[in-house]
Structures are given as C-alpha cells and as structure tokens.
C-alpha cells in the first residue's frame, strides 16, 4: 500500500480510538448534569434525609464526606511529605530506599476493598475504634499516602540542586536548607498532590464500607468516634439497596459527588500548570 495512504488510515484509526476514550467522559458528565441538575436545591444540599431517604436532602452525607476527607488529609499529608523528604533529601540509592519505593508502588496498587478489610482488622477491631470517623479517616489516609508521597517527591526533585549547595555553603545545616531553601519552592507541587489526594479520598467507597459508613443516619456526627453517612456510599445505597427512590435524587447525589471530586481535580490541574509556567529555573 502507498505509505501516504496507510499513514492517513492509521492516523484516523488512532484518532477514533482517542475519541472513544474522551467522548464517554463528556457523555457521562452531560448525562449527570442534565438529569441531576433539577434535583439540586438549597434544601437538597442542606437538610436531613426523611422518610427512608426518599425525601429531604443529603446534608449528613456531604458533611460526613468532608469530615472523612479532612481526617485523611490531617493524617496523610505530614506523613507523606516527610516520607518524600526522606526519599529525596536523605536517602542515598541504597537497598532501603529501593524497598521504600517498592512499598509505595505496592501501596498504590492494593485494591481499595483490601484497604477496607485492613481498616476493619486494625482500626475497628484491633485498636477498638469501632466503626467511626476516626477509623474511616485513617483507612482513607493510608490509601492516599502513595498519591501524596509521589507528588511531593516530584515537587522536591524539581528544585534545582544548586539551591541546596548555596544554602549549605553559607553554613546552614541540612534541615535548615530543606526548611528554607527547598520546601518553599516545592510547596505548590505538594499542594497539588494534596488536592489530588483529597479528590481520591472523597470518591472512594470500598474503604469506608466497613470502617465508618452508615446506611441511614439522619443526624450529624457528634465526635470522631461516631459513624457517619458519606456521599459515595449514599449513592451506592440509594441506587442499589433502596427501591423507589426518585431518579432525580439519584442523579442529583451523583452530581454533587462528581462536582466535588472534579472541582478538586480541576483545581489541582490548574495549580500545577500555573506552577510549571511560573517556574524560572
């Protein structure tokens, strides 16, 4: 075959394949916005569910998700950033650091439902926290740890080596160098990773199934040892477990969850690209 012609055909096929990946994303967004938009109102977002979830709002689920995500971040960000500092600033390329990297890869690959089992085994049962916001947050926190470590590592590695050399040559200690010459420049990248982790934690269902999520709990949690409703689990429940829920309520719940997660991700993408453009080195 004529190579020009075969190039045309091949490029068209590749383009079609790309459309097959991207068009469904837009279709999913369009369907959910079109069918769920009508359900969104002040009372849907800010009141309690009533009558076995067929009426009222989803406020406790929204608030529950915010609590869980907040808890996960409080736990995972300090730990993740310090782990990244270890990998970039302290470890040499030895056996231990290879092992740490392998562990991070594997943490990222562990199925979310296995995190749920782990959380059930260690936090709910062994440590006796029960099914609670604390157990759920810790489980989600460990799950998003790889996301945070990986992006913090990338951010730290992108700070030029010369910054460190200058600081050290002026007599600063190793920690002072990291604290004042490296971390400030890596901060936007670390923030990006944190937001991505937030988005991931907000959308996951399997890890909270057995560690915190309540089926129907029309009141707000009082302490970190309370159970709570959560958006993704609520969507699962009203779309598979409870018959007779109006379609617009299901789509509305999906829309709120999707909006929360996508806004977080969009914020991260924008932040990252601005950071990359602004970088002067």
């Amino acid at each position, binding site marked *: 075959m004529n190579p020009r012609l075969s190039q045309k055909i091949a490029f068209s096929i590749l383009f079609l394949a790309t459309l097959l990946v991207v068009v469904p994303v837009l279709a999913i967004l369009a369907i959910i916005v079109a069918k769920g938009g009508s359900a969104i109102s002040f009372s849907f977002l800010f009141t309690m569910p009533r009558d076995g979830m067929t009426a009222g709002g989803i406020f406790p689920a929204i608030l529950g998700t915010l609590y869980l995500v907040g808890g996960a971040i409080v736990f995972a960000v300090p730990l993740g950033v310090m782990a990244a500092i270890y990998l970039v600033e302290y470890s040499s390329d030895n056996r231990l650091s290879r092992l740490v990297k392998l562990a991070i890869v594997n943490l990222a690959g*562990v199925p979310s439902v296995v995190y749920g089992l782990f959380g059930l085994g260690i936090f709910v049962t062994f440590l006796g926290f029960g099914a609670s916001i604390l157990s759920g947050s810790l489980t989600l926190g460990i799950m998003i740890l790889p996301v945070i470590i990986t992006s913090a590592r990338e951010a730290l590695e992108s700070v030029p080596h010369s910054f460190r050399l200058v600081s050290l040559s002026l007599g600063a200690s190793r920690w002072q160098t990291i604290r004042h010459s490296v971390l400030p420049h890596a901060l936007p990248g670390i923030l990006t990773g944190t937001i991505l982790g937030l988005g991931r934690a907000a959308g996951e269902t399997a890890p909270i199934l057995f560690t915190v999520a309540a089926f129907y709990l029309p009141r707000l949690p009082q302490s970190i040892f309370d159970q709570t409703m959560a958006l993704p689990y609520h969507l699962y429940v009203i779309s598979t477990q409870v018959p007779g829920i109006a379609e617009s309520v299901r789509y509305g719940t999906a829309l709120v969850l999707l909006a929360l997660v996508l806004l977080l991700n969009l914020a991260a993408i924008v932040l990252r690209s601005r950071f990359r453009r602004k970088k002067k080195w």
Partner: protein
Amino acid sequence: MKRATLRKLKEWLIERAILLSGVFSIVFVVLIFLFLLREGLALFRGESVLDFLLGKSWYPISSPPRFGILPLILGSLLVTLGAAAISVPIGIAAALFIAEIAPRRLKEALKAGIELLAAIPSVVIGFIGMITLGPWIKNVFHVPTGLTALTGSVTLAFMAMPTIVSIAEDAITAVPRQYREAAIAMGATKWQTTWRIVARAARPGMVAAVMLGIGRVIGETMAVMMVTGNAAIIPKSILQPVRTLTATIAAEMGESVQGGAHYSALFAIGIVLFVITFLINGMADLYLHRSRK
C-alpha cells in the same frame, strides 16, 4: 551555646521523624498483609487451601457452608480479560495519538480529559453503567438481565483506560528524539516511524502500562459490584451475571459474623487479592525500570 545545642536537638528529632516516615510505607504494606493473615488464616483450620482455591461452590451461609472461590476467581478473570481486550488496543492507540500526532493544544486538552476520567469515582461510573449500559446490553443481546460480565468488562475498560493511556504516553514521550530523526532521515513516513520505531522502543513501558491497568481492573470493587449482577456461579458465557472476588468481600462483609468462618473466608479472599496485585505491580515496576534504562 545552649541555644545551639537546643537547635541541634530539635534537628536531630526532626531528622529521626523524617527517617521514620520514610520507612512507614514499608510498615504499612507489612501491616496490611499481617492483618489480612491474622483474620483470614483462621479459615484454614477447618478448610484446606486447595478446597478454598479450587472449590466450585461458594455457599457461605448454607449449612454446612461451602467456601470454594473458583467461581469468584473465574468471574474476576472473565471480567478482567474482557476489560483488557477492550481497553488495551484503544488505550495504546490513544496514547500513540496523544504522544506523537496531536498538536500541542489538543494534546494538553486530551491529557486533562483523561485525568478527569481517572478522577470520576468508581461508584459514579458504576451508577451510570448500571442505568445506561445495562438496559442497552439487555435489549441488544436479548438476555434476561443486562447486568452481566460483559457489562462489567465495558465499564471497567473505562476505568483501566486512564492508567493505560497516561503511563503508555509517558513511555512513548520518553523515547529519545534521535530515534525519530534517524527514521525520518531514512525516508520513513511519520506513521512508519511511530509504529515501527517509537512504539517498539516504548514497548517495556507499554507492557507496564497494560499490567497496571489490569491491576486496577482486578482490584476495582464498587463499579463491578453494581453492574455484574452478582451471581456466584461458574460463568459459561460473557452474557451471564458473575461475581468477582472484590464484589464478594464488599457485598458480604456486612452480613458476616465477626470472627466466624464466613468472616475469615472474606479476609482469605483479601489475601488472594493482595498477593495477585502485589505480583502484578511488582512486575510492572520491573518493566518500568527497564524502560527507563
């Protein structure tokens, strides 16, 4: 003098904390495995490992209960193979398009689109698959229910796609420019260069991309539970309801009694999943390292 010692002490503490945090990832992997073993191994006091892995019936609440997970393994395998058959060719093709052909602006937009796909929560994808894809499959194939292995495969293909595309795209972009320049200088067309030179050079990275995509599919829980119909029987066709390993844990943990045989059996399934994904990710990591060299 005293202030200096205080500062030194503070830094010493901080550096210990950093070292400790670094090692925590290893601790967590080990802890996850230990706790799965702790809760799951109890099953094998009354059950042989072989009966568990190769037993053909999963009746956890009949008496006596039967804990054979072969139907679940086959269910996971069927859904995963189906998803791979769809997502691998499409994903690799899309990665080639994005990395080699798309102009800069389009490339950035497409990459953002794929990141958004990766961000959609699995329960939302399951929800959409359940109410749009399910009825469609039911009508097209004239089957009694639209919640089948095929529905699961299509749904999961979309969840594997972002992983495959983004990692394959990285591998393609990492191919040195001289390879392309040499091929073009020899008179090859852009497509010949892309297909015969660049795609070949990026192959280890592509293998890793496919493996990580498959790892994601095997571990996926909520979407698969919502769209595959959840029947724990050995599947004979891709148009039948199936039940995967992950969905079994998620669906049954709530009704099992803590410390009972059913509870242990679900943790034992967790061990199986952990080992499978550990192997897949370990191998993918090896391929990625090879492609970087």
